[in-house]
């Protein structure tokens, strides 16, 4: 019930050993994402402590970890939003530090924060984003209409997004992240706010993109989805990778029934049951007992 501290290096190394003969398809190709000794601190607070990771094209990588573990920082470095870091990061053959623009042209990013200029309409927003990628405005509009229409947003194309629900904004952001046909997609909680049908649609899109050779870097807390969607899972905690492998491999190694179990085993000191009990006691018992 109460597990000891994370397994740390042992699991990571064992995990890596298991994946070096990486199952699925394209092992001999050059990795499309490559991180070596990636280190980053904010002031004197270290966030990433030497991340080593290689991702082959056509994979869906689940990148999970507790809050503050360094997931978002890793992604921001990979997409060129954080130019200052130690170590090396290469995406699509281009060094992120030296050729950030080349990297940005080939990647798509859907942030967790659902940030967009909500006084614009979806068409206006996508037109703007498309132009930044150098696409012809008319082509952008054609793609936008098609993609948003498939997300059931045809009626809202000319309405300002300030009235949109979170799910609707998320759909626009997903569209914005893919409209320029990127080779690598960085998705941070892409399913949050989506209705059941759209969740299934997006999962299908991810699976098909992978089959077409695109690479997906998927950050999430929702373990069941990660379990099923990703063919490789990397768990990060305190700025270090502590597990890396396919779900079956990891499960076997740690005798865990689900990814959620595995995750809590590796990252927390446990005691969830005790916390739950005390929480309920806090409001069930009258404080007269404590004087």
């Amino acid at each position, binding site marked *: 019930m109460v597990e000891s501290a994370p397994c740390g290096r042992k699991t990571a190394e064992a995990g890596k050993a298991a994946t070096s003969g990486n199952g699925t398809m394209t092992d001999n190709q050059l990795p499309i994402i490559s991180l070596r000794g990636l280190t980053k601190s904010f*002031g004197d607070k270290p966030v990433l402590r030497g991340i080593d990771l290689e991702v082959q094209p056509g994979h869906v990588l689940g990148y999970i970890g507790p809050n503050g573990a360094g997931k978002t920082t890793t992604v921001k470095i990979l997409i060129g939003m954080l130019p200052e870091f130690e170590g090396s990061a290469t995406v699509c053959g281009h060094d992120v530090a030296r050729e950030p623009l080349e990297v940005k042209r080939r990647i798509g990013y859907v942030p967790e924060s659902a940030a*967009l200029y909500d006084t614009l309409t979806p068409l206006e927003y996508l037109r*703007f984003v498309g*132009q*930044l990628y*150098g696409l012809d405005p008319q082509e952008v509009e054609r793609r936008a209409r098609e993609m948003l229409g498939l997300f059931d947003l045809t009626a809202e194309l000319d309405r300002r997004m300030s009235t949109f629900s979170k799910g609707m904004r998320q759909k626009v952001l997903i569209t914005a992240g893919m409209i320029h046909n990127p080779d690598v997609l960085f998705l941070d909680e892409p399913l949050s706010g989506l209705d059941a049908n759209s969740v299934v649609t997006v999962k299908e899109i991810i699976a098909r993109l992978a089959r077409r050779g695109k690479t997906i870097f998927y950050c999430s807390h929702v373990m069941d989805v990660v379990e099923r969607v990703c063919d490789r899972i990397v768990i990060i905690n305190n700025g270090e990778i502590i597990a890396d492998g396919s779900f079956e491999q990891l499960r076997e190694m740690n005798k865990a029934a689900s990814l959620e179990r595995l995750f809590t085993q590796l990252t927390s000191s446990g005691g969830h049951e005790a916390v739950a009990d005390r929480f309920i006691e806090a409001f069930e018992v009258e404080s007269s007992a404590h004087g």
Partner: protein
Amino acid sequence: MVRLSLWLLDGLRPLFRLLGVDYGQLRATIQVKLTLDGRRRSGHMQGIEGKDRNVFVWTLFFYAFMGVFVGMVGVHTASPLVGLTIVHAFVMVMVGLSLIADFSSVLLDPTDNVILLPRPIDSRTLLVARVTHVTLYLGSLALSISAATLIAGAIVIGWWFVPVFLGTLACSVALVVFFVHVFYLLAMRLMDVERFRDVILYVQMVMTVVVVGAYQILPRLMDYKQLLSLQIDDRWWVYICPPAWMAAPVHLLAGHPSQAAVILTVLAVAVPVLGLTAVVGVLAPGFQRALAQAELNPVQRNEASVQPGRPRSWGYRLSRWVTGHPAERAAFELIWQIASRDRPFKMRTYPTVAFLLLFGCLFLLGDSREVAKTLAQLPETQKFLFLLYFACMMGPTAIFQQKFTTQPEAAWLYYALPLEYPGQVLLGAFKVMAIRFVALGFAAMAILALVIWRAAILGDVLFAACATLLVSALQAWLFARKFPFSEAFGMAQSSGRLGRSVLWMIFPAVLAGFHFVLRWIHPCTVVGAAPLVFILAVLMLRGYGQLTWPALLRASR
């Protein structure tokens, strides 16, 4: 407006090519930013859903209109130095306030980074786009305010006025940009983002008051003979007065050569140039860095936003004395907290207190030009009545505004809780508004009145206080039957609005009239009548507090 600016940009295309930027991306970015400017709600209109008109264009027209008044004052003065100092002062103040009040949301918004940075736009294109955007924004503001002056000056002084004035305008704007950047950097050092947003709110409120005040004061300035014949060449303080620097070039070239004028002209050109260099070289990048850092690791936020152990809020302390029923008390505490923090609410209510004071004073002065004489004659009049009952207008504003919020869905709470008498919530909210606004406004007016009329009117103040309470209670009883902070902002239903406004004014007028009659009978009757009025108010409030669900649901139909 957007099209016009883009047309201008297209004309400058070769220049941008020369600067080494991607013109397509630049144009797209500026187009989006201008569109956003047009739809962004300024200060007092926060939270309201925008229509399809371009808000910014209306702002420009508004400023141009104000500019006419300013221009008239500027042209009527004997010396160009004085007149143009006033004009430039006005431009600098308005541009500066506008920049802080309306543009801060743009500068402080981290959304920009999240949207633009992952895209393949290089930093030079981005920087040029931002600079161009800000220049367009500020330039249009400055030009619209000074349009009237430009035309008037060209006619009165000559054609050469136009380029020189445009030059000094540019210098003024540059100087303002410098000052505002320094202000921002200081602010970022000294306080956290939340506190800073409050400061911005205060600036917005000040701006609203300044704008309304300007309309009242400017026309009076034109009759102020002393001002019109002023010569300030020889005053020592012109050297530290930036608007005076800006006025000097025209003054000099219009045939008033003096050592002072020459020095000032040099200052007018040199200081902004230095300032702008500092901004581009040091301040702006530093500011961007500070912003990026602040956004990327919110965990590092200044601890000032969370103050453990700070004294319990006034709301909690007062609630015990002022409220009876537990539901009423809970509502009082809640609404007190929200009213002290909700920005759109504060923005729509606090300036009214300032307006009250402003109009009160202006009313007392009337149309006279002899300020001192009028003041001396006041104690003989009964004008204090108007002052005291003016505060009755405070209540309606706060009470009417209290139901609006940017998060109306949060009101589900009232419906899900076991609330037997929803009137208790309304009563609690009323008391918050009564204490925070009506009492505040009344105290302001009462102090002003007591200062002028002294202790003779103490009894009247007492009666008026009770009467104000009664009127506010009546207004709440009739008009405030929706839960506080439960409705979205909207162009409020116009039907019934006129009737309501009229009624709001009638009650105070009736009570003021009653007060007047009592005084006429004998000035001391007011003291005796006050408790009666108070009891009446209390009874009315009790009824208010016992409003039932059916009554409330009727009201929301």
